[in-house]
């Protein structure tokens, strides 16, 4: 994928980070069309030219938000089913914490824009790299099917929650009812393997 090579000074800029944070919240609420550079500049407390100094176009600013995958904490390899399930719940809830980015990226993804498609692939690859050792270790021959099953199930649940809960998405996902349901769903598709001590 195309990543902008950034000069070290730009990477460290606090102003740039602030512009990105404000833009993320605005794009998530108002969509791409409904957000202007002027609104972003106002929100970040800078002038329009200051925004253009960091990002040549609105599209460049928007797509810069989609470059970093949502999670990057590695799952410590485990052969214990319950702790693997607990880690997957933590991943899922961690994604939900970036509610604005989640809405913004879903908007792009469902329109199949190049940035949206790439964002999904990057996150899918990151997630699979983190969970694969557990599946291979625990399910052996069945590993890749179980991994696909859990991946699609969690994607469906995640996208469904975005569409159903709107602005209260994050608090719903953190709620006890949702968390309990998530655990039950994972247990229903991740059976205990004989020969593994629980």
């Amino acid at each position, binding site marked *: 994928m195309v990543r902008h090579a950034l000069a070290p000074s730009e990477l460290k800029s606090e102003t740039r980070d602030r512009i990105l944070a404000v833009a993320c919240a605005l794009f998530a609420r108002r*969509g791409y069309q409904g957000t202007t550079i002027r609104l972003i500049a106002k929100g970040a407390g800078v002038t329009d030219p200051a925004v253009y100094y960091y990002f040549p176009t609105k599209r460049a600013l928007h797509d810069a938000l989609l470059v970093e995958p949502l999670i990057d904490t590695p799952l410590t390899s485990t052969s214990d089913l319950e702790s693997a399930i607990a880690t997957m719940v933590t991943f899922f809830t961690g994604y939900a914490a970036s509610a604005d980015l989640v*809405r913004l990226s*879903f*908007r792009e*993804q*469902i*329109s*199949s824009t190049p940035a*949206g*498609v790439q964002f*999904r692939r990057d996150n899918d690859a990151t997630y699979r790299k983190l969970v694969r050792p557990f599946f291979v270790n625990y399910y052996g021959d069945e590993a890749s*099917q*179980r991994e*696909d*099953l859990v*991946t*699609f*199930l*969690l*994607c*469906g*649940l995640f*996208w*469904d929650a*975005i*569409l*159903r809960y*709107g*602005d209260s998405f994050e608090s719903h996902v953190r709620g006890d009812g949702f968390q309990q*349901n998530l655990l*039950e*769903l994972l247990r*229903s*598709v991740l059976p205990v393997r004989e020969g593994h001590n629980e």
Partner: protein
Amino acid sequence: MTVPPPLGVRGKDETRGRILKAAMELFGRDGFDCTTIRAIAEQCDLSDPALYYYFKTKRDILLALWDLPSPLEPMRPTTPRNMRPASPEFPMDDGVLMGLVDWMLDGSARQDSLNRLLFRSVLDGDKTAIALRETKRRGWLSVLTPYFASVFPPAELAIRLETAVMLALGFVYTAQIENGADFPKVAADPAFRAPLKQLMRLAIPLPPAGEH
């Protein structure tokens, strides 16, 4: 310029189709909440009364676009075409479960562009879109429930249903994102459907025939 409703079934169908097409365009441009019946009538060169001949409310137009039964609530349980209605004498077997997967994929493919429009409108906070999306979700569940209830005990029913629906949604949304406008064509291919069917068998283990 007012065009009276044309006579004859074909003329009626043609006008009805024209209204739905115009409504789609306006919903896409202005959102569901902000589109008026009058604007739709103007867009397809009909008078308000002529349009009312076909659709009484904006909600009726939305329902027609999505092939949803009217009135909106309660959702009338429907049976996918070519499938035997669910009953305790004929518990869901592999063929029925695969038929339900096909039914979900067929609907997603047929309504691909509508669904994308619906999702964008939901993200915009459009109240009509949010209600409609919830109706569609409950629609899937209401079709699946009697089949699943024919094999799973009440204590297991909810989690089995949710597993099946979320798995299908995750698979479909992923393919919609990856394939863009080609999704309906891609989804018609049996080779595309096979992996979801395999995963569904793994996720929803059916009891051996004769045991229930």
